[in-house]
């Protein structure tokens, strides 16, 4: 391997990227677009769940209860109706996800028997949102319920209401506000880098084949290793710029807390870039058309990363065979690392497991990539 040839390859490739609008777009615009799309698009929090209310009593007490729903950030009252038929219509149309119905004898039963209930009709098509909505509704009602109890105790002349016998003293670590965004955005960065990284290099070799420039290149004394390193080097730099862009976007725009060190991020991102760039290069060597190579690169990175990297769907809740497959998904390790670095502030040594896995991954892919390119036409 000669440094002069390596440098010539790298400079040539850089000039070509700089002059090729398609490459430049992938390099600079795609990561930002994907950060915005995925960052805003994927949101597992149920806030402002649309509610419709049907108050069949119209008492002071029932109105006070419904005001609680109105005040909650988790709900937004979108419709106030006065028939069951209207409730059904709202749920059918999807105007609301949950309907709260206060029975006509709500206050009466409360004062008679000391206990009463309200009805919640929930649209269960999206089980996740339904579960969350039910939980939130229970929380609102139980809050109201203890207020009622306190007032009742006070009216009976008891100064201190009896506390419930058992309670949980909950304290949330790492993602204190339980914002799903904090959990997802680091994963989005991994996803974007996986996509962009292999897209960038998927065009390099196929472009030379398509334009006919490869025939001359392979007739020169340049070695396959010089070709590979010379072509990857500029994209490594671009990839780092993209990663910095995405990470900065995560911290400053989405305001995900960042508790780790830049160095950890630097080391692990470099490793991940080697993996994704080599995968793109490998595809580019095997598929001699630019369009084909970029499609294949998209296919092999998009689906596994979106579904099996753990960026939205937790891996430990997957069935065992699927979980076994996730070990083959490169982004799995980077997702784990980014989440830990962002939210837990872990360093390289705390993350020895996934880091080692990425080192092995990078080594294997790099060996395959370096051997794939043959200086022959047949």
């Amino acid at each position, binding site marked *: 391997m*000669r440094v*002069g*040839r390596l*440098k*010539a*390859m790298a*400079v*040539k490739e850089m*000039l*070509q990227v700089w*002059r*090729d609008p398609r490459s430049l777009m992938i390099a600079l615009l795609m990561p930002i677009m994907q950060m915005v799309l995925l960052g805003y698009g994927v949101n597992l929090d149920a806030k402002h769940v649309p509610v419709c209310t049907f108050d069949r009593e119209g008492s002071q007490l029932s109105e006070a209860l419904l005001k609680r729903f109105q005040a909650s950030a988790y709900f937004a009252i979108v419709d106030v109706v006065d028939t069951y038929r209207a409730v059904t219509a709202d749920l059918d149309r999807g105007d609301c996800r949950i309907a709260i119905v206060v029975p006509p004898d709500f206050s009466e039963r409360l004062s008679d028997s000391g206990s009463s209930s309200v009805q919640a009709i929930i649209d269960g098509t999206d089980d996740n949102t339904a579960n969350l909505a039910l939980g939130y509704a229970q929380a609102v009602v139980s809050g109201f319920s203890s207020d009622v109890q306190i007032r009742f105790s006070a009216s009976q002349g008891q100064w201190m209401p009896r506390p419930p016998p058992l309670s949980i003293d909950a304290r949330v670590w790492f993602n204190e506000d339980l914002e799903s965004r904090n959990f997802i955005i680091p994963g989005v960065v991994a996803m974007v880098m996986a996509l962009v990284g292999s897209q960038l290099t998927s065009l390099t070799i196929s472009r030379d084949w398509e*334009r*006919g*420039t*490869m*025939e*001359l*290149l*392979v*007739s*020169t*004394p*340049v*070695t396959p290793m010089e070709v590979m390193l010379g072509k990857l080097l500029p994209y490594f730099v671009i990839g780092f710029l993209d990663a910095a862009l995405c990470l900065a976007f995560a911290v400053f725009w989405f305001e995900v807390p960042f508790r780790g060190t830049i160095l950890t991020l630097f080391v692990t991102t470099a490793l991940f870039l080697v993996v994704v760039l080599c995968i793109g290069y490998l595809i580019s060597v095997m598929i001699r058309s630019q369009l084909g190579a970029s499609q294949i690169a998209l296919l092999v990175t998009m689906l596994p990363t979106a579904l099996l990297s753990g960026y939205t769907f937790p891996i430990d809740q997957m069935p065992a065979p699927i979980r076994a497959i996730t070990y083959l998904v490169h982004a799995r390790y980077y997702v784990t690392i980014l989440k830990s670095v962002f939210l837990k502030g872990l360093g390289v040594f705390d993350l020895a497991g996934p880091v080692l896995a990425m080192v092995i991954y990078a080594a294997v892919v790099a060996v395959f990539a370096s051997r794939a390119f043959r*200086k*022959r*036409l*047949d």
Partner: protein
Amino acid sequence: MSAAQPKGEPRIVVEGLVKRFGSFTAVDHVTFRIAEGEIVGFIGPNGAGKSTTIRILCGLLRPSEGRAVVAGIDVTRDPEAVRQHIGYMSQKFSLYGDLTVAENLRFFGSIYGVPRAVLGERMRFAVEMAGLSGREDALVSTLAGGWKQRLALGCAILHRPPILFLDEPTSGVDPESRRRFWDLIHALAADGVTVLVSTHYMDEAEYCNRVALINQGRLVAMGSPVELKRRGLGGDLLLIETDALGLALAALEGAPGVRDVAAFGNTLHVLVDAAALAQRDLPKRLADHGVADARIASIEPTLEDIFVRLVATSAAAGAAS
């Protein structure tokens, strides 16, 4: 110039070379030698196997059978070593269109390992040779065909290779540019560079020291243009001009001393055993068949005549055996 036999040591040796793509035989038992400083032309129609042979010699394709030795190195055994000694111009233009003239030259100079100390001077030479002085910063994709080809040649000789493979370097280039291109090739050969150049322009064969006629993967004949013309026909060529072309054709076919008659435009090319004899006998025979206005002249055969003739005889020989 018209060296009939290779002078000096052979730089390219090809023996029994065969290349098959599936059931198609692109190169069919080709054998030849090329000496130092020779310009050898591969002449033949498209798909004759010229490019395939050149690609094998560059180490880009592996031969199915036979042996190819370039600069004393077996191309199958050590293609990388061969690449240090050769310059190659592929059939399809293969410089980088999105790089400038200077950037292309610098890139290929570095890839070929031209020392930095001489690269600048070699680049200047290449730019001058291509007639691109002052346009060093132009993107190559904006250049016209002739300039592109000369620049590609410039790139191929940056590292001063002793052997040059040029695959249809002049296709799609205007005649003036083609002449200039051949001047460059002659200048290189004068410096001892061995040149193997393919073309489908028959007239370009005249620029070569030796010509290899190739058809359907087979080497039909090889020799200097003069030698091929003399040997290839096995007789003399007469040109007959007449208004009664059909009558004349019928009169001459099968006539004693006439080997072959072929229509060339609105004239006849007649191959005879001996020109002197025929010029005495033929006017009478033509007149007997009602062709009164025939003008007969002895002409030099072109390589195209030879090629057509040789392909016909080799096909006949192939059918007979």
